[in-house]
């Protein structure tokens, strides 16, 4: 039985399934619950992808390793990439967006709550669908970017009968990424409409929190980039099952078409993975420096510039395929150019910290770690834009080092920073500070131990994705070091999960505003009520909650923007 008391009246009725604990989560359209479900799912797959990474590093810890057989190894490294990109970073950042964007904007929910739920369920089932391929031994095995002709199959209809990847491995990749793509499109449409239409009175786009800005740019990137992936996956599906020849070179198809279409999605995807992390860091650094963000407008619009430029750089992944010189020059220039708006952000974060009263709490440590690690990843990315250098290290471990500095040192550190910062809002409890610092230092040392030697391995000629290596190439010690670092990261993740459980069980209460923060999500209870705000707040500056707490020094009295 459920009771509903309104005023003096009690209505008694039979409890429906949607009001039971499980049913409530299964049928919810509340953005906060869906956000938590996204984050929980993302971290579950983080564990899966992490275990895959440890298997890879165990196999490569010493020469002539035989921990995995070659076929399984191909599946493991492919699924590590797919899992971390599509099932950890994207959903977790989407989860933060779902939970926080309406709260930051002063809205009661997302614009399309049921579509929000649809996006989550599609993500969950898409993830389970791809991972279930392991159960029948047919996990995708052609790399996370699934290059044709590795992934193509001429099949029975093809005149050439070329079967590069027989079996269902590639089909799992194609259909799984299609499901995840639909989920992302549903989510990004929702973000765009929510941000453009549901802002509180007075919150112009020029006063929006930078996290919402970055989510907006990311959503547009998804909307424009994902169709390329969906279309190219569909063409591959036709090649494999219907007998078309889009990528079949023996029938005048072109395998390079795959690379062009894939990377038209794939490079914006890198920014899809990093822009929300930029937003998270842009929220945390000012709060823990006790200053407004330096260069708000530059940070916001450099995000937009990155968004536009990200569509002009895709062929830097393809320098080694023999592009014409003019194309190489164009893509090298555009890739170098994108470093400018990125550097604008880095300088602004540093300028925010300069002269501030910095408090080195765990969220801030991860935010600073993010800036430092992303800087290294960005700089070696610029190195890869230099065509002759790229020729030397293309498809080597140097590229693996670069992508991990960007995606682990960048996106994952951003996620950890956001998690420590907003955990009190999600649960009403603060994650333990001592364990948080252990987590940070273990992760920082572990990631540098793992990925820095990979630069050297790449320069020494170790190809990426190699199953094993002989012991006389000078790679042994560096590989061992990388493997030790990987296990150190594993330990750091265990510390994080222990912290989760211990805090949820016995953590100290956070209060509504434990960090003395600036933005609207803190101007409500922790965790927030279902309706977020009893009265929709009126916004007069970029730091509305600060204005409310400190009316004598309110931003709107001093600054006009």
């Amino acid at each position: 039985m459920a009771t509903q008391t309104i005023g003096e009246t009690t209505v008694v009725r039979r409890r429906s399934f949607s009001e039971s604990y499980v049913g409530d989560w299964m049928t919810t359209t509340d953005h906060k619950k869906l956000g938590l479900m996204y984050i929980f799912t993302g971290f579950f797959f983080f564990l899966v992808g992490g275990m895959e990474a440890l298997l890879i590093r165990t196999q490569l810890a010493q020469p002539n390793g035989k921990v995995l057989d070659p076929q399984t190894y191909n599946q493991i490294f492919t699924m590590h990439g797919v899992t971390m990109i599509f099932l950890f970073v994207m959903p977790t950042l989407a989860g933060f967006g779902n939970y926080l964007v309406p709260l930051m904007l002063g809205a009661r929910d997302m614009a399309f709550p049921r579509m929000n739920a649809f996006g989550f369920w599609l993500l969950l089932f898409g993830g389970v669908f791809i991972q279930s391929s392991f159960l029948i031994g047919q996990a995708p095995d052609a790399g996370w970017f699934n290059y044709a002709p590795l992934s193509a199959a001429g099949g029975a209809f093809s005149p050439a009968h070329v079967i590069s990847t027989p079996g269902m491995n590639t089909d799992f990749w194609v259909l799984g990424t299609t499901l995840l793509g639909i989920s992302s499109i549903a989510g990004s449409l929702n973000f765009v409409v929510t941000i453009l239409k549901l802002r509180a009175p007075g919150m112009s786009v020029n006063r929006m929190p930078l996290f919402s800005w970055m989510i907006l740019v990311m959503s547009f990137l998804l909307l424009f980039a994902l169709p390329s992936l969906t279309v190219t996956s569909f063409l591959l599906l036709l090649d494999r099952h219907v007998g078309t020849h889009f990528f079949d070179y023996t029938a005048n198809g072109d395998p390079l078409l795959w690379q062009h279409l894939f990377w038209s999605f794939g490079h914006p995807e890198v920014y899809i993975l990093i822009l929300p992390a930029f937003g998270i860091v842009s929220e945390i650094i000012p709060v823990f420096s006790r200053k407004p963000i330096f260069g708000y407008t530059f940070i916001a619009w450099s995000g937009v510039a990155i968004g536009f430029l990200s569509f002009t750089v895709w062929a830097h992944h393809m320098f080694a395929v023999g592009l014409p010189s003019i194309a190489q020059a164009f893509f090298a220039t555009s890739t170098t150019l994108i470093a400018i708006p990125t550097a604008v952000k880095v300088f602004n974060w540093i300028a925010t910290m300069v002269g501030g009263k910095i408090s080195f709490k765990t969220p801030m440590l991860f935010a600073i770690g993010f800036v430092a690690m992303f800087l290294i990843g960005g700089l070696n990315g610029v190195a890869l834009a230099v065509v002759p250098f790229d020729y030397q290290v293309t498809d080597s471990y140097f590229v693996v080092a670069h992508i991990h500095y960007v995606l682990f040192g960048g996106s994952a550190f951003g996620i950890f920073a956001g998690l420590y910062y907003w955990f009190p809002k999600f649960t009403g409890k603060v994650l333990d500070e001592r364990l948080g610092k252990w987590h940070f230092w273990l992760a920082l040392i572990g990631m540098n131990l793992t990925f820095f030697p990979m630069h050297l391995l790449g320069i020494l000629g170790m190809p990426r994705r190699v199953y094993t290596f002989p012991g006389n190439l000078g790679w042994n010690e560096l590989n061992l070091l990388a493997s030790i670092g990987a296990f150190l990261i594993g330990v750091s993740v265990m510390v994080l999960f222990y912290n989760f459980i211990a805090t949820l069980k016995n953590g100290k209460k956070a209060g509504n505003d434990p960090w003395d923060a600036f933005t609207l999500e803190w101007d409500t209870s922790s965790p927030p009520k279902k309706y977020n705000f009893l009265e929709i707040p009126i916004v007069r500056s970029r730091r509305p909650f600060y204005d409310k707490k400190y009316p004598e020094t309110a931003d709107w009295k001093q600054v006009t923007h």
Partner: protein
Amino acid sequence: MNNYNIHNKTCSISFPYNSAWQFIARVVGTRFIASVGGAVGLSSSSPSSTLDSPEPETTQETEQAQSPLVVSGKKRGKKKGRLVSVEEIMPKPSYWPLALAVSFVVLLMGIMISWIVIGVGAVLVIASVMGWSLERR
């Protein structure tokens, strides 16, 4: 009428939100809900009796029990600015997003399994889209 000065622009927001209004809306609103509940057979006890009503057991029930009144936006032709229970303006739970997601998975799995599964998936997708569209919000 409340006036707010936002950077030299005056915004007028019409809030019929004072204690008298709140009181009337609460009394009329709850009596109305109770009478409708009784008419459709949802209520199994005297609507006005609260003496032996059980304490809410879950957070959800507690929240429902304490649902405050808020000013509504315009929704389905209803007047903007009236006082409503917060439950009324929040999105309702729905099975259809889950059902549609499952249907999509079945449809796409059919490509790997057989035409029959594709057919089943297509029927499920159509049914879910219809259920979604026709659901009362």
